[in-house]
């Protein structure tokens, strides 16, 4: 880690893991998809990112994980600009897209080992983590089969395990609960909690409002590419349920 990087402490005194500053992204042709987003995720946060279809969630998330190139604003992960040193940022980040298309021609274990190689995970760590999470998601027995034979949910489980394999400081998930069976969804929530207690942070988008309300300590709502509200979950919701707040905010134009 470069010595010059200084950690800014958030309001709560925790280290900032993700900091989005004035991020904007336009579609080809000029229309704004995301407009001046500012947002901070601190160590230990489970940060829910909520919005209707086409609000700009995925456009934001893909820029955070370094998949989408952007011109306006900047994004810092663990204090490093993703524009200046994308590789260093990606080293501490894990990403699971909403519809994880994995390499169909590899077996599950080949894929996990491939990802572990790319992230430079030691032999002992990768074996221990694959064993742990494979058993937790009850998928170890299928590791020897080609991914092309996997169901949608199994692919998602594999993507989740591949994201946990290098113990990321920042875990970014796009709609992680879609397609998971109830047990796997429960396991994922447990794992998310564990990860945050060990000092990581999680940033994820979702449509499942009651999950977000229960799981997240912080929430941001995006509408038409702009953040309409963000902060601690109880501050955002007040006396109402998150669903009521969300519907109310989305209704007003």
């Amino acid at each position, binding site marked *: 880690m470069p010595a010059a990087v200084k950690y800014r402490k958030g309001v709560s005194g925790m280290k900032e893991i993700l900091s989005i500053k004035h991020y904007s992204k336009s579609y080809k042709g000029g229309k704004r998809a995301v407009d001046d987003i500012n947002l901070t995720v601190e160590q230990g946060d489970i940060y829910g990112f909520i919005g209707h279809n086409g609000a700009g969630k995925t456009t934001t998330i893909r820029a955070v994980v370094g*998949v989408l190139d952007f011109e306006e604003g900047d994004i810092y992960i663990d204090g490093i600009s993703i524009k200046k040193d994308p590789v260093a940022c990606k080293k501490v980040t894990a*990403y699971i897209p909403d519809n994880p298309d*994995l*390499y169909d021609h590899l077996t*599950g274990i080949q894929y996990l080992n491939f990802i572990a190689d*790319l992230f430079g995970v*030691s032999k002992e760590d990768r074996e221990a983590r694959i064993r742990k999470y494979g058993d937790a998601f009850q998928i170890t027995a299928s590791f020897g089969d080609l991914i092309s034979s996997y169901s949608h949910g199994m692919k998602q489980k594999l993507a989740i395990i591949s994201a946990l394999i290098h113990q990321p400081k920042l875990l970014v998930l796009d709609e992680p609960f879609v397609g998971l069976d109830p047990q796997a969804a429960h396991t994922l929530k447990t794992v998310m909690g564990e990860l945050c207690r060990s000092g990581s942070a999680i940033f994820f988008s979702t449509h499942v409002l009651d999950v977000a309300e229960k799981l997240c300590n912080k929430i941001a709502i995006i509408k038409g590419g702009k953040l309409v509200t963000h902060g601690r979950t109880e501050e955002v919701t007040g006396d109402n349920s998150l669903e009521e707040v969300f519907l109310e905010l989305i209704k007003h134009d």
Partner: protein
Amino acid sequence: MINIWRLTRVQLLSSFGLNKALHTRDRKERNNLLLLGAAILLCVVMLAAFSFGYSYMLAQTLESIGRVDLLLALMMAVTSLIGFFTTVYKAGGVLFGFKDYDLVMSLPVKTSTVVASRVLQLYSLNVFFTLLVMVPAGAVYAIYVNPGFLYYPLFLLTLLCIPLVPIIAATIIGALISWIASRFRGSRTVQLVLTIAFVIALMAGSFSINKQEQVQVLADLGAELAESVFRLYPLASMYVGAVCSYKAGSLLLFVGISLLAFLLFTYVLGSRFKAIHTGLTTSRASRNYRMKSLKTSTPLRALYRKELRRYFSSSVYVMNTGIGMIMLLVMAVALLFVSADQLGELVEVPQLADYLNTLAPLVVSVFVTLSCTTSSSISIEGKNLWILQSSPVPAHTILLSKIAVNLTVTLPVLVISWGLLSLSLRTGWVESLLLLVIPAIYACYSAMLGVLVNLKLPNLEWTSEVTAIKQSAAVIVAMLIGFISLAVPFAAALLLPGVDGNLLLAAIGLVLLAVCGGMYRTLQTRGERMFRGL
């Protein structure tokens, strides 16, 4: 019928980024695509002109033996055979390898309609080539013979039927191979091995036919030629009967056979289509894995292994890009056995020997340039691209792994062929060295060129691998640049007979090395940005 067209149109729109060009709102992107379209059009016009010139020269030769009528027969037979040959190895992939299978098959259309739309995609790939050969040939014929008015409608009517029978024949073999493969456990590997075996058998077969015919060149050249063409491809005689002699019977027979073959095939395959597709795509799921010790490796090695597995998991990919190396190997072996004596005599002719030594490395390089796997290696990532884009590996490492796979495909075959060719061509040590080094440089050149072109012209939204591998702008552009890079040295070698061949080759090698260095630098400095901009 209308459904067949609807399904075919959807597939065709995804080719060459056509739909993107029609609907993109980005002005820059549209302009780029327009420019590309113009460049391709220019090439088509040039090819058409070349084709016309070739037909014209052929017609002159045929006129001297009084058989201009054979021009159309010859050209028709040649397009048909080439069509057959180039379809055999991609038929299985086009028929069964499309990702929207579930979507298409759940639509309220007959399975035979789906099959028909797949066959028509193969047809559309071939009809272009047929037009490019036959239209100029037809024009030359009209100039020479000045036929009656009836010639024109008959020519146009039969024109579109020409590719049907070769495609069906090739597709039957492709489907058969797929059908056999679908019954095995490792169906993809079996499909690949069977296809390669068939192609090699076909090449070996055509070599032996040529050998026989050389013996039979007799006094009555015209009749002999006609007979051998018609024997090689019986439909050619029907075709000539219909177009040149206006025989109604021949016309009916030719059009009838072509259409009937198409209908019958789609009907028959339609009944087995689902079974074959299921057999090919159902992977074995044993669900009995137990955690074992895992091997670690560097990112580059891991990427390389993944890339290599990807390559060999797709028979379309291997056949389309490996065909050049297969041909090179078959040629090298054939030269060793078939005509060692004749070749020996040729080498004795002093002037020819010089040419041979200069041209041989370039000829070998043609095969190497044909085997460019990298020009579709980024497109082939398709929806998987996020995995590499979000991984903490510098883009140039990723791109390097793709180049390494291309070299793995070309270099070993090149070295083996080089050994064989050195034996049969009896080259001296300098010539031997050039025969290895020049194609090796071309291998590096074309691999890096492919990556750069594909970065500039990616096609990530395909539903069938064939679209990425065969029908994408990057593949065509890389191939064109590759050919130009070969045509220039060829022309230099032929037009500058005074210059020492070895010197010329060395100069070409140095220029290419410099270009390779430049491309490598570009990948290192700008690769990251280009890769992230995908």
